[in-house]
Every structure is written in C-alpha cells, then in structure tokens.
C-alpha cells in the first residue's frame, strides 16, 4: 500500500518560511498570493496501513505544532510514478 502524509504547521503557529516565500512572490511579479504555509510531504509504502496514524503521532508529525493528513494511494504494484 502506498500512502502520502501531508504535514503542515498548525493554524496560529508562525511560519517564517511561508512568510518569506510570500514576501518574495511580489518581487517576482506574482501578486495576490497570501497565507503561504509550508509543510512537508512524506511518501511511503506500507504493509499495514493501520499503523499509519500511530506513525504520524509518534514520529512523522509533532501533533503539538503540526497537523497531518493521510492519503492512501492503493497498492504500489501498478502505480509507476504519480497516480
């Protein structure tokens, strides 16, 4: 089973990385982008997807400061690259 975990800073937590990117965009002529938040994407293959929530809580994310979303992508056998 392939899965993706999307991890992002919790609402209300200052994200200086996102702020820096947000400030850089207008300098390149891209206007109107706001609320830029930068997180992390973890892709993995698992034998037992039921372990994924515990993996997220214990290691992949720090639930005090990060939210995460789990996306199950089915078996890895047929997928070659993006689904």
């Amino acid at each position, binding site marked *: 089973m392939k899965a993706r975990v999307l991890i992002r800073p919790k609402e209300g*937590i*200052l994200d*200086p*990385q996102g702020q*820096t990117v947000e400030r850089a965009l207008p300098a390149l002529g891209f206007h109107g982008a706001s609320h830029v938040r930068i997180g992390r994407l973890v892709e993995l293959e698992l034998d037992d997807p039921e372990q994924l929530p515990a993996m997220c809580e214990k*290691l*992949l994310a*720090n639930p*005090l*400061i990060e939210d995460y979303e789990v996306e199950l992508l089915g078996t890895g056998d047929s997928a070659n690259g993006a689904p």
Partner: protein
Amino acid sequence: MKFGVVRFPGSCDEVDALLACRRFGDAELLWHGDRDLRGADAVVIPGGFSYGDYLRAGAIARFSPVMEAVAAFAADGGPVLGICNGFQVLCEAGVLPGALLPNTSLRFVCRQVDVVVENADTSFTRACARGDLLSIPGKHTTGRYYAPADDLDRMEANGQVVLRYAPGENPNGAEHDIAGVVNEAGNVMGLMPHPEHAVDPLTGSTDGGKLFESLAAREPVLA
C-alpha cells in the same frame, strides 16, 4: 556527584559539557546505545545535531536506547539537563512541555545572550538568586520555544519558566521570551543557551557554571 553526559551520533557539545561537569563533580560520557546510565546521579543531554536532526530537531534521538533509560531516570525524579539539541530531544520525547520551532529570522544565531533567572528554587538554579542575569552563549537555528497559550499560563503560574531572555535579548522569537523551562516535577530542565560554553574565564563569562554547580550541590542541599 557523578554526571552522565549522553553522546548521540551528531552531538557536538558533549566534550564541553563533560569538562563543565568535571569542574563540579565526576562525569563520564554515555553512548546513545547504552541501556543504563552507569550510576550517574544527574544526566546532561548536550547540544549538537543528533542523528542529523532529520525530520525535526531531536525527533529521532528520542527513540535511542539511552533515552529509554533517561526517561525512566527522569520519571523516578532523577535530574536531567537538556541543552539546546538536548532541550529539543526532551520536548520531542514529551519529558518537557512544548516544542522548539525554527527561529523567526530563519537564521543560525550565534552570540552571547543575557538570561534572567526567574526561578532560583530549582535543582538547576539554586546557586543563583532570582533576578540574576547570566551571560551565556546561544547558538541555534531551531530555538523558538512554543507551547499552547493555556500551557504557557500554567507553566508561568507553576514557576516552570526558569530562564527568560532579558528584555531585547530574545534571539529566536520564543514565546514569553522563554530560554529555559523545567517539567512540572522540577527535576528536568531544558534550555537553548549553552551554559557548558560559559564556565572558563578564558572564554569570558563563567555564568554557565552556576547550573552545574547547582546540580552538584543538589544532594547536600536536599539531605
């Protein structure tokens, strides 16, 4: 009094921590694979980049064998001092409240900072007086202390905020200017600045020695 100083792959301040401890007692290095603390009366988790600090600072180190022993030692009331990366490890392990986030500047900060002793009634600060200013070097990229607002209020009320950056000195954007905290029981402390680099007159301040002196004096004081 014997200190045990933990060395992880990627630690870099363990030797300075060892030398700082030896000014006030015996000390030896503990390896990350150790499952016992070799009779240490106090444990120091030093600074550095344990296991490369991959994923999040301190996130991997908390699963090392020695950390199981440290967690059990802390649960029994043993004194544990986490410095910089050691602070991050203890927060990731849930031994200390809160988390350390990237500095608001996103830059590596490396300079002497003044911190105020907010609570001198701990095993780590009893050689100080409340309100003392300690000049200690800070050097980190991920030192912005964060805890949810309710937790911060409770920690402030309990006296768990032990060290606070002096006004205008906060190098990383930490909530409430927090530089160092203790757990609720008061036997585990974490701080971002590096007291082990401030123990010898040769390098300027010796204020950092106060923390090791406090720990070394712990047993006689309680006896």
